[in-house]
């Protein structure tokens, strides 16, 4: 448990104790102090607990371990260890071009829970498929992978901007007309179907 989660659990414990007072002795709201205490214990603190809980869960769902804890995502997690620099996620993960503990989120910032309502509903559909029905054999991002996910880091970077191919295609890249990953330039992504045949990297080797 992280430090912020411990503080949240402490806050929840205090709220439970205060709420329990009104469960056992609701008559203490007869006085003004009791009324104020009831407002804090049954309105302010619980609302704070919901808000802090939501933040804690959002932060947790940014972690790589959280993403690959779903069975269907385990091969995607393995693909981060492919021993071949042409595989974009593996290259970014192994060289810490993205934070290793937030490797998935770094390149999928608009995905499921992190996106707008439509994506959140899509995320719930995936939870349903994982635990109730069956996940699809090939997992694809609804609507395709947006170049903005690459550009939020690469745009403005010297090595990216000075590349003649990138500069020639810049308008098409920013408007998503030419995809970074499906136009034939950077098409080695997770490729989970090939995992068994690829050489894997072991940290510390």
């Amino acid at each position, binding site marked *: *448990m992280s430090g912020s*989660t411990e503080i*949240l*659990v402490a806050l*929840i414990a205090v*709220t*439970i104790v205060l*709420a*329990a007072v*009104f*469960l056992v002795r*609701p*008559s203490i*709201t007869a006085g003004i102090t009791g009324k104020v205490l*009831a407002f804090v*214990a*049954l*309105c302010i603190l*619980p*609302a704070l*607990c*919901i808000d802090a*809980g*939501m933040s*804690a*869960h959002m932060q*947790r*769902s940014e972690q790589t*371990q*959280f993403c690959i*804890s*779903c069975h269907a995502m385990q091969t995607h997690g393995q693909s981060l260890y492919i021993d071949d620099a042409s595989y974009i996620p593996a290259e970014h993960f192994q060289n810490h071009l993205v934070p290793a503990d937030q490797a998935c989120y770094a390149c999928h910032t608009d995905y499921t*829970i992190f996106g707008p309502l439509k994506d959140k509903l899509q995320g719930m559909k995936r*939870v349903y498929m*994982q*635990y109730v029905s069956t996940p699809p054999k090939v997992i694809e991002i609804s609507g395709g992978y947006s170049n903005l996910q690459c550009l939020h880091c690469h745009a403005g970077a010297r090595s990216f901007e000075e590349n003649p191919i990138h500069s020639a295609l810049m308008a098409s890249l920013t408007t998503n007309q030419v995809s970074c990953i499906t136009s034939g330039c950077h098409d080695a992504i997770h490729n989970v179907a090939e995992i068994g045949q690829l050489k894997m990297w072991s940290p510390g080797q």
Partner: protein
Amino acid sequence: MKLRAIGIRKFLQVSSALIILGLLVEIVSLVWFHPLAFVLFAFVGATLIGLGILVYLLSLVFASSTPTDNRG
């Protein structure tokens, strides 16, 4: 008046019970590292806490509508 006062107390007890239950669910969701923990928190914990707050706010409306309160 007495009956109404007892009603308000009942409201407060129901509100407290819902909030306590919701907060216990939230604690479970925080210590359980699993994708379903978020679903548990959002759909069970937060709903229970939200309902508890709503019941408490309803009790305030109910209390302020008592005629004796307005007489001073």
